[in-house]
């Protein structure tokens, strides 16, 4: 088999037990590489312990933007071997990989032996002890930098920048430790970091959850109510300190039943509002999302998906909340479901989601997931977009105001409390155009038509999907599965396989005409998703006309879809 021709990148995983400083070291490495003009990605994996326990910082560096993990690790740097076997399935290593481990760490665990990777030993702990205040992780980074060809000075500078000039002794001891590690780097043939092509530019270092929070603020969110839940909490934590600086407020609720109702209340009061949660929280919010549909109250719910059902694996990703997001509400409850296509795309998708909620006066569920939410990427500075239309409100001097008037667009002006003459009661009961409760068939059908119609008549075409490539083979995917497929499509092109990638940012309402146009000329369609039951594939079958030749590929989390795996799907579909 030919080796896939992916853009060159170097993947390094740092492992160690709690307190060894693995995450800090990973962040330092990413910062150092960034200062050399590289792009990068850092994902984290930890054991179930609240504090301590084993940890792995996974870093991928490249002179081109990378927003998903690579196929394998070039280097595993083990500060110790405590419980490292728990990560075995997450750490693809092979004969071309290099393991750098502490000389005192003991025997190589079986799964590392089986990988046939080369091993280099370094007395990291011993060396660190020889420096006052020296840390093992700094010695390790020094040796690593020397081995892969990253200037040691970049590590020292990154340390200085993160711990600050306030602690000159700590900076000095770190520098000593880094240089000591570099000087004692083991003799080993290490994969080299390609710095050619690396060029500094206007870059951001951002996590998917931060990007979601920032996109929401850019979109105009002024109120956030939320309840802590992994892996969404960072959205709330980031917004807790930034939102009040931008004219908004964040409240921690007593549970998700409260947080969704708080945001409905705030939005009723005129404040664009958002909550962030994960699957268990979304389940609790579902009844009230129906209320937001019926009362036509704009709200955004970000679901950072994790492996389900029930508590599942709180720290690992999966795209398995599609069904509940689309179908969870009782009754006929049309609403919008969106999904960011990468870490950086969380910014656009969150901002767009706020825009859609406000413009359409409806709830929007944005399906992010753990793999993009909790990962950090170094990206090109994204553009600052603006989406014109916002909430349609009742004008002054409205005579005989009817909150739920049947209009051409289906969207009716919303009176905001405080506006004289706009007094109405928002209601989850079926109501007439005035908002008065009604059990009349005519009112029921009229309002169902109104709420469906405003979505049907809206033009989602600007951002409904990202489409790239050309070919008779088409791939349809969504959310975080898009990024490894993008890399795979590019690699397939170098092998002469033409593929069109259609990555949906808008899940609901379905856009059959837009997809039909995008699929023109496609003879075979591969549908890729990270769920066990093929939720996305079944959703597409229900709502779209697809070519007869379909290859559904659904596999659950928690392991990420890697570019090589994605390329294999493409090769297979192209062959047969």
């Amino acid at each position, binding site marked *: 088999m030919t080796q896939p021709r992916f853009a060159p990148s170097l993947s390094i995983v740092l492992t160690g037990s709690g307190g060894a400083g693995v995450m800090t070291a990973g962040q330092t490495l990413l910062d150092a590489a960034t*200062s050399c003009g590289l792009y990068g990605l850092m994902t984290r994996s930890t054991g179930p312990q609240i504090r301590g326990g084993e940890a792995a910082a996974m870093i991928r560096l490249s002179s081109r933007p990378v927003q998903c993990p690579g196929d394998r690790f070039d280097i595993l740097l083990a500060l110790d071997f405590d419980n490292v076997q728990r990560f075995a399935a997450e750490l693809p290593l092979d004969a071309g990989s290099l393991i750098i481990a502490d000389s005192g760490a003991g025997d190589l665990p079986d799964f590392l032996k089986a990988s046939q990777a080369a091993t280099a030993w370094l007395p990291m702990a011993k060396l660190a002890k020889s420096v006052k205040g020296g840390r093992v992780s700094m010695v390790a980074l020094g040796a690593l930098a020397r081995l892969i060809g990253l200037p040691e000075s970049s590590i020292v500078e990154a340390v200085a920048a993160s711990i600050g000039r306030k602690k000159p002794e700590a900076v000095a001891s770190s520098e000593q430790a880094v240089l000591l590690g570099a000087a004692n780097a083991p003799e080993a043939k290490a994969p080299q970091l390609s710095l050619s092509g690396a060029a500094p530019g206007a870059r951001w270092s951002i996590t998917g959850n931060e990007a979601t929070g920032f996109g929401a603020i850019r979109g105009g969110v002024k109120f956030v109510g939320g309840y802590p839940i992994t892996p969404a909490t960072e959205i709330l934590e980031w917004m807790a300190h930034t939102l009040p600086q931008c004219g908004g407020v964040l409240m921690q609720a007593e549970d998700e039943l409260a947080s969704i109702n708080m945001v409905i209340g705030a939005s009723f009061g005129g404040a664009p509002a958002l909550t962030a949660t994960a699957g268990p929280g979304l389940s609790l919010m579902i009844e009230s999302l129906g209320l937001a549909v019926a009362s036509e109250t704009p709200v955004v719910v970000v679901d950072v998906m994790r492996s389900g059902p029930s508590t599942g694996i709180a720290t690992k990703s999966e795209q398995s909340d599609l069904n509940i997001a689309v179908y969870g509400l009782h009754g006929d409850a049309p609403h919008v479901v969106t999904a960011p296509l990468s870490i950086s795309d969380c910014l656009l998708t969150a901002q767009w989601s706020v825009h859609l909620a406000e413009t359409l006066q409806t709830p929007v569920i944005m399906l992010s997931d753990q793999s993009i939410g909790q990962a950090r990427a170094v990206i090109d500075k994204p553009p600052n977009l603006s989406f014109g239309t916002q909430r349609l409100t009742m004008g002054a001097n409205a005579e005989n105001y009817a909150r739920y008037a049947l209009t051409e667009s289906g969207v009716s002006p919303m009176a905001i409390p405080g506006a004289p003459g706009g007094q109405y009661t928002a209601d989850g009961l079926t109501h007439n155009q005035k908002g008065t409760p009604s059990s009349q068939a005519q009112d029921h059908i009229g309002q169902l038509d109104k709420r469906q119609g405003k979505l049907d008549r809206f033009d989602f075409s600007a951002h409904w999907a990202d489409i790239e490539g050309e070919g008779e083979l088409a791939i349809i995917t969504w959310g975080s599965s898009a990024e490894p497929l993008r890399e795979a499509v590019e690699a397939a092109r170098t092998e002469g396989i033409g593929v069109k990638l259609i990555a949906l940012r808008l899940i609901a309402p379905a856009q059959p005409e837009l997809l039909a146009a995008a699929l023109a000329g496609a003879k075979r369609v591969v549908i890729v998703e990270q769920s066990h039951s093929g939720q996305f594939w079944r959703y597409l079958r229900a709502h779209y006309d697809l070519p007869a030749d379909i290859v559904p590929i659904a596999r659950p989390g928690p392991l990420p879809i890697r570019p090589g795996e994605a390329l294999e799907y493409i090769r297979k579909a192209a062959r047969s």
Partner: protein
Amino acid sequence: MNMIPDAVREFKPADYKSAVKPVWCPGCGDHSVLVSFQRAFAELGLPPEQIAIISGIGCSSRIPAYVNAYGFHGVHGRSLALASGLKVARPDLTVVVASGDGDGFSIGGNHFLHACRRNIDLTYIVMDNRIYGMTKGQPSPTTEPDWDTAIAPGGTGLSPFHPLVIALASGANFIARGFTGDVGGCAKLIIEAIRTPGFSFLQLLSPCVTFRPDQQKQWKSTVRTAVVPETDDPGRAARRLMTDDGFNVGVLYRGHREPYRPHPIADLDPARLEAEFEV
């Protein structure tokens, strides 16, 4: 559209009447609550557009549509959460929450605790008839243990919930009880509740004439004005509420807790946040 400045606008109870006809049974105590609302708002001189009445599900929760004000008739049990979000986003509004003993103390029980604890400037009025009326006669958390119903034959055997004690223990700043047989008294308590900053809890005994006519028509002769004046001492209030038989009417506790008022610190252009991410 009323263009007269609020300072010179005068309001009559009829100004708060909406065109919607109540679904309540004739004689239901909730009719009196509606009248009390209208009298209280008029006396407070609140412009209708500055009032929001938030409710959940149940007979009592139908009240927002019957008042000329902004309103939200939400899902079962969540009115306090919805109202909390509204009041924090819009501190300028007078937010009144209307609920019943099932909506407020059973399905919404957790929100009750946390609304008291948070002490947002809300007025929480629970029309307590010790019954689920809308679903036609099941026991609620305040129903007597021996009251026989189809869903709990022979009675629940459970001690009733004591909402005033819970409110005090959870941090409510104002605790009062009224009886809907005395509309003027209810209106006065509503005025006091709205005027007192922080979370004000007002239990209104509101008889259900359909499912509990025999027991609750006695209430008129059972209720009494509390003989002890209101206190700001939580210790005294606790003793008094713990020993209270549920029929002392009036302001029973008024504290001095500062309301919770989270607010924006600045109104910067979001572009200012970009520096957080620049490398």
